């Protein structure tokens, strides 16, 4: 009875239009699913058995990508209850942790998976170096990876300002003061003043939209953290994954 119902469903035009092949329990369908699914075709159809060994990749790259998905997921939830306003932001965070159903868990997860992502990305880079996987023809993809690592750190840094607590304010004050010391483009950096940089026109002023870390800094960092940097890092990840397939795997894969 159930078998007949299942067969009926599977024979409908709707089902057939969604799933182009049967359940992947034989060679043909296991190949077809890798070809026909946009997400799964990041992978090849077959890989060498030795590549499955945990000791080779330790899943570090994959877990970094998973952390990014988890951060997007929890970040979107947090955005529903957060206003980037210096008078409200701190209270919003308190509300999220104490009043919103599962809000505290979402914030904790966002925080710890962000830290985990930094760690995983670093270790992934370490692993790729130690197994020599950056060598020709994969030089370019290593470069993309370094940029992704930098973007990960920038995402963490911009996210730091959003709770508008003491840690936020001072971490960003210190960080943007460093921008002020940039050679040529910063007011306090070497050759900055010689090139006409002032407190109100140098690179730090652009970054925080003012001379002190205040409302415009919060708004700018919010937009960078929630829109600009995630879009950039997604683009980078797309290229990174594509190149893994196109440049070929090192070693056992």
């Amino acid at each position, binding site marked *: 009875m159930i078998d007949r119902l299942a067969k009926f469903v599977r024979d409908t035009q709707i089902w057939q239009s969604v799933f182009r092949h049967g359940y992947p329990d034989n*060679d043909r369908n296991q190949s077809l699913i890798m070809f026909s699914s946009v997400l799964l075709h990041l992978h090849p159809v077959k890989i060498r058995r030795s590549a499955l060994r945990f000791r080779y990749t330790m899943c570090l790259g994959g877990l970094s990508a998973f952390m990014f998905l988890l951060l997007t997921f929890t970040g979107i939830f947090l955005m529903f209850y957060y206003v980037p306003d210096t008078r409200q932001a701190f209270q919003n965070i308190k509300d999220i942790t104490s009043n919103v159903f599962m809000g505290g868990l979402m914030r904790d997860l966002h925080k710890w998976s962000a830290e985990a992502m930094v760690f995983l990305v670093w270790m992934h880079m370490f692993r790729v170096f130690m197994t020599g996987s950056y060598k020709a023809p994969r030089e370019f993809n290593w470069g993309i990876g370094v940029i992704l690592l930098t973007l990960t750190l920038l995402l963490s840094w911009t996210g730091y300002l959003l709770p508008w607590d003491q840690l936020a304010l001072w971490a960003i004050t210190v960080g943007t003061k460093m921008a002020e010391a940039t050679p040529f483009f910063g007011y306090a950096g070497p050759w900055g003043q010689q090139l006409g940089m002032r407190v109100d026109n140098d690179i730090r002023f652009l970054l925080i939209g003012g001379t002190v870390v205040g409302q415009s800094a919060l708004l700018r960092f919010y937009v960078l953290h929630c829109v600009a940097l995630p879009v950039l890092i997604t683009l980078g990840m797309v290229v990174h994954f594509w190149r893994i397939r196109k440049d070929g795997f090192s070693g056992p894969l």
Partner: protein
Amino acid sequence: MSERNTTENIYPRNPKKSYALMELVKGQGFQTKKQPEDTVFVWPHLLYIELIAALVFLAGLLWVCTFKHAPLEDMASADTTPNPMKAPWYFLGLQELLVFFDPWLAGMVLPSLIVVGMIAIPYLDINPKGVGYWAWKERPFAIWTFQFGWVQWWVFIIIGVFFRGLDWAWYWPWDDWHQHKPSSGATLNDMNVILEGWGMSVSAANMSTYIMTIGYFAVFMVLPAILWRKFSRNLGFARYVTVWGLMALLWISPVKVFLRLGFNIKYFLVTPWFKV
């Protein structure tokens, strides 16, 4: 030449056909060293591993969330800086570096050079060995250099996380972390001031610091070419200069820490525009 003739002889072009064998070349086929029977389907073998890894990691994160909550301090206020003010752990290495270098160097130039240097690695490493497996012995230079930077990075982070307390003074784990340490009695001096103290004239002292700084880089540029001739010749000029220039910068943090802690030197080079 002979290859072309061979191809023509074995497979003569047929004008009636729209296709033809273009060329036979020597080389390895795609399947060399890859036995088809050694491969497995990604679905389900690899996908299961990925799913399990993700779920285990997520479970671990959830477990952490049950007893360790994301920190939230008092509301931001420009009046008082918390003491000590620590950046998140992954930036503490840079924050520690800021104790020894001016912000333009520790905060902007050195981090940028780390990024640029890392991107350059594949183009600087000409050793073809050790691709795709854990290998120490086949590429000692690459690995020792990388480890040197990697260990520095973590040592600075560990110092920042575990050994810096009130007023960013050095605290041992067994010290009282709520008690301010008296300001250190040692006074810091610039290299040229120290040289003046030894009886040099002002201009001679300044000149000496310039010469010593240039000498520092010159050692990195000249010494390897003498010590490792073959290795240097293989690198070629452009790679050689880049590799050893970056190497000199990789050593700059330990050298400065040594000068600061050993000899109380604040800057070893003072120019009208910047100080190092």
